[in-house]
């Protein structure tokens, strides 16, 4: 039961950090901003709440945590679930409100076909059984941003049930292993979003914006198959990627298109499940795992101190880093569910059951939708591994940033460089620069073509990899220039004239006989001691004024020589 200590606690970027080989991160760490140590530090801090595998302080029992999720994803559609109002984020308040959305008496719901199709697509992608007949219900509660006094949802017979979601966690130190876990999906239901209440504490006013009222939501209920915040966060991340791949939701947590509630309980393995609490409104990827872990920790602490867990609703206070009871959710809610009488049962068909001569505008064919499902993230990763021979963890990293995969594929199209090389550049250098400046992939000043050209230069050994990084920095700073232009402006190309290069080497070596002596006597030779070798050597080389940049290119040459002659002696003999 006890969850393994996971090497990272949250989403995308940490995955990259945990899994990518940091070999090329030398020297310019600060400039590239690939601050692995800082992030690693975060990782270890975040691991502390992971008590699931720890023995309790009193020593007798292990604790196990059980986590289930209810996820609300806003459906990406032109109009709302039951009205013709447009759906648009950040429109002026109350500008997207139909008579129905304002629940004027006598208005009736009319189901949006697109929302039903989105639910079917999502259900199929999550391996659900699609119910050919589903029903709508009213869920009653009074709140100012719920103008009808009830929400239309699918309580009794939802559109999709009994699915599963596979997600992968990365465990162990390098080389890390990717472990695939599965969480069962209880159901997916279609329902209306509420409006927004904006509380003006100063004037003790509540302002209502109904733009969001009636937008279609997919409520995805995940069974309590997870055991810590990280698993929950990873499952949510995978769901987010699936929704985005399907186009059924933009699933942007910051814009409220993906909202998560977690049911959390702890118990001793082998004993019945504990009393659960509901942690509400986990609306940022950052705090999702943290909130769940802190709630697990709180429950264990309470129980170990002889107190009880109350079945209550709590919210996460991100400033305090812990969960607090929600005061306005006190008292038992009875939602007084009732069938929605204004909507007939929602009937779906497959090719077999499709009534002959049915109007295609009036029926939805599940098989038709299934045949047109786009490639899902798990399939994309598998394809990347097969097609380019990259590591599984790299395939995750490529999918984790919006637009990164497309960028990668565009680079691949235009370069002769090895896919592995491209992966390393995209995930280490390129992504590192983006992260440092907090940019999205589509905001990058470096285009895929520019990076492809740079990698071509590197591939045909026109420049060294150190120079390539310098060119990349330059590309980042000065938009519009091509890598070739930068290389020639900065005179970064490798010297191809073997003799001239050798002459230059000799000049250097002859000028520094003592360094040469030390180098030759060091076990492993020059190459093996890079970074720890004679400290004066590279500096000396760089100080040669006429070769300032080019001298860097001697390293590969020297290495060739060294390999050919099994070390330095032959080379020293030659002059």
């Amino acid at each position, binding site marked *: 039961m006890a969850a393994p200590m996971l090497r990272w606690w949250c989403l995308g970027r940490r995955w990259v950090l945990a899994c990518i080989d940091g070999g090329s991160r030398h020297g310019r760490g600060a400039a590239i901003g690939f601050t692995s140590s800082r992030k690693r530090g975060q990782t270890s801090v975040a691991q502390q709440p992971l008590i699931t595998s720890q023995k309790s302080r009193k020593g007798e029992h292990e604790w196990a945590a059980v986590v289930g999720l209810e996820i609300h994803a806003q459906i990406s559609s032109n109009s709302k679930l039951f009205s013709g109002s447009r759906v648009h984020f950040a429109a002026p308040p*109350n500008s997207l*409100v139909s*008579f129905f959305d*304002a*629940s*004027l*008496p*006598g*208005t*009736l*719901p*009319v*189901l949006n076909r697109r929302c039903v199709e989105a639910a079917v697509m999502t259900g199929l992608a999550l391996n659900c059984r699609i119910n050919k007949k589903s029903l709508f219900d*009213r869920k*009653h509660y*009074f*709140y*100012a941003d719920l*103008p*009808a*006094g*009830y929400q239309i949802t699918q309580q009794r017979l939802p559109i999709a049930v009994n699915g599963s979601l596979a997600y992968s966690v990365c465990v162990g130190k390098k080389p890390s292993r990717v472990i695939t876990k599965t969480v069962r999906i209880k159901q997916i239901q279609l329902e209306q979003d509420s409006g927004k209440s904006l509380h003006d504490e100063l*004037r*003790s*006013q*509540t*302002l*209502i914006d*109904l733009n969001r009222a009636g937008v279609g939501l997919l409520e995805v209920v995940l069974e309590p198959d997870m055991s810590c915040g990280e698993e929950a966060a990873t499952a949510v991340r995978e769901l987010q990627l699936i929704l985005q791949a399907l186009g059924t939701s933009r699933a942007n947590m910051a814009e409220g298109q993906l909202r998560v509630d977690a049911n959390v309980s702890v118990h001793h393995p082998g004993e019945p499940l504990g009393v659960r609490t509901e942690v509400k409104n986990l609306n940022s990827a950052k705090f999702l795992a943290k909130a769940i872990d802190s709630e697990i920790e709180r429950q264990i602490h309470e129980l170990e101190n002889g107190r009880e867990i109350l079945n209550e609703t709590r919210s996460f206070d991100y400033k305090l880093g812990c969960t607090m009871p929600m005061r306005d959710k006190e008292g038992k809610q*009875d939602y*007084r*569910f*009732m069938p929605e*009488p*204004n*909507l*007939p049962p929602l009937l779906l068909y497959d090719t077999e059951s499709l009534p002959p001569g049915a109007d295609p505008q*009036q029926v939805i064919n599940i098989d038709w939708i299934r045949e047109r499902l786009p490639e899902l993230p798990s399939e994309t990763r598998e394809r990347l591994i097969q097609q380019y021979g990259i590591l599984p963890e790299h395939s995750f990293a490529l999918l984790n940033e919006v637009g990164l995969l497309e960028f990668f594929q565009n680079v691949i199209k235009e370069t002769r460089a090895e896919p592995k090389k491209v992966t390393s550049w995209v995930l280490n250098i390129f992504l590192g620069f983006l992260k440092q400046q907090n940019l999205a992939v589509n905001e990058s000043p470096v285009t895929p073509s520019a990076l492809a050209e740079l990698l071509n230069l590197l591939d045909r050994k026109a420049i060294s990899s150190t120079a390539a990084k310098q060119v990349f920095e330059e590309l980042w700073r000065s938009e519009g220039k091509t890598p070739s232009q930068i290389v020639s402006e900065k005179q970064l190309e490798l010297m191809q004239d073997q003799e001239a290069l050798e002459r230059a080497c000799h000049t250097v070596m002859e000028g520094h006989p003592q360094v040469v002596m030390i180098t030759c006597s060091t076990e492993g030779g020059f190459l093996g001691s890079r970074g720890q070798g004679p400290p004066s050597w590279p500096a000396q080389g760089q100080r040669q004024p006429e070769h300032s940049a080019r001298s860097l290119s001697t390293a590969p040459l020297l290495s060739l020589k060294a390999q050919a002659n099994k070390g330095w002696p032959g080379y020293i003999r030659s002059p």
Partner: protein
Amino acid sequence: MLGRTLREVSAALKQGQITPTELCQKCLSLIKKTKFLNAYITVSEEVALKQAEESEKRYKKGRSLGDLDGIPIAVKDNFSTSGIETTCASNMLKGYVPPYNATVVQKLLDQGAVLMGKTNLDEFAMGALGSDTGGSTRNPAAHCGVVGFKPSYGLVSRHGLIPLVNSMDVPGILTRCVDDAAIVLGMLAGHDPKDSTTIQDPVKPFTLPTLTDVSKLCIGIPKEYLAPELSGEVRSFWSKAANLFESEGAKVIEVSLPHTSYSIVCYHVLCTSEVASNMARFDGLEYVLGDKEEEPLRTVSQNVNIGQKCHRCDINVSTEAMYAATRREGFNDVVRGRILAGNFFLLKENYENYFIKAQKVRRLIANDFVKVFNSGVDVLLTPTTLRGAAPYLEFIKEDNRTRSAEDDIFTQAVNMAGLPAVSVPVALSNLGLPIGLQFIGRAFCDQQLLKIAKWFEKQVQFPVIQLQELMDDGSSISEIEKLASVSLKH
């Protein structure tokens, strides 16, 4: 002219015997003379005269929109009318001016009909007059000596009809004769994209054929409708009607609808539950416009100032406390009682025992009808009401629940099953008040039902009320007024 049928008036308009404006003015003046009856909540005089004027222009140009052009109509005050206050006779909606027309209102206006105003009803139509949830079109029709037609559920759009019980509400049609009801049905029926519960098939306006031979018909007489409370007078007209069909060659048989007796109690659970849900939106803040400058969609606030603008509310405690106060103030006792009962039935612990059971009973009631019709019965013939209209003092003796239970005894089950039914006036009682009988048809066989009702109407020759005489002779009105006041003092 006012006593004539729609078709007669339409012909007179086409021939220029009367203009739409003259007709409209005649109506307005009758409304004024009978104001003491409280028939109208809102008389939209200005709008009506303007509509009449436009209709007149069309007639002059020879571009009449059809049979309904220039015809005065009234709409019950639970149908949304754009720009005209729609209150459901409730404090909760006092001052609410809908920004849109109900589909049925729009369809009538598109045909050139002239809207005289909004007619009265129990608060949220809980027990009296135009839409039909449990008999509210047929009962008043029977008492007033006119035709009251409840179409099949799903045949006519409910969009814009402020709901009582969504699954039973149907816009009802009140006219002088069956043919007129058919004309209006032809205009209103059919799919409405704004109401998902309407049938998909298009319905075209139609002329009701005249039935000459009833010998192939089978008329069912449900034995359970012979209630002990049924007045002897009504019972005898019911028998006469059955005999009439039989004498003309129709097959008249006794049938059984064993679950109909549970209809009222079943209705009570389902109705109150839907009412509790439908009324949840009335928080006393949203629909009543405050100052003119204020947007229809304004802030809901815990602040007293804004609370006062929206509604008479001085609560500054919590949203819940504010709702409790505004809702208490906005709804009358009957509505509040139903909301309380409905919420009780919907509680998690009660849902199975009440709501689900009531739904099952509803299915049994509906199945009774299906069985009877499957056995070859074309229409059912029943009384519409237990007795003739009661004098006001008798009427107010009973509380609302008892009254509606009695009123709806013959009409309610039809709504449970979604069937079409029509009340046709038969004769006057000893007191000189009208009595009606009800025909119930198969679902979506509304035309066949009306065809049979039309034949029956022709046989009974019910005496038409002579409004023209009342109009011409001022003394008659005061006679009525005197009568009314006498009955009040009774």
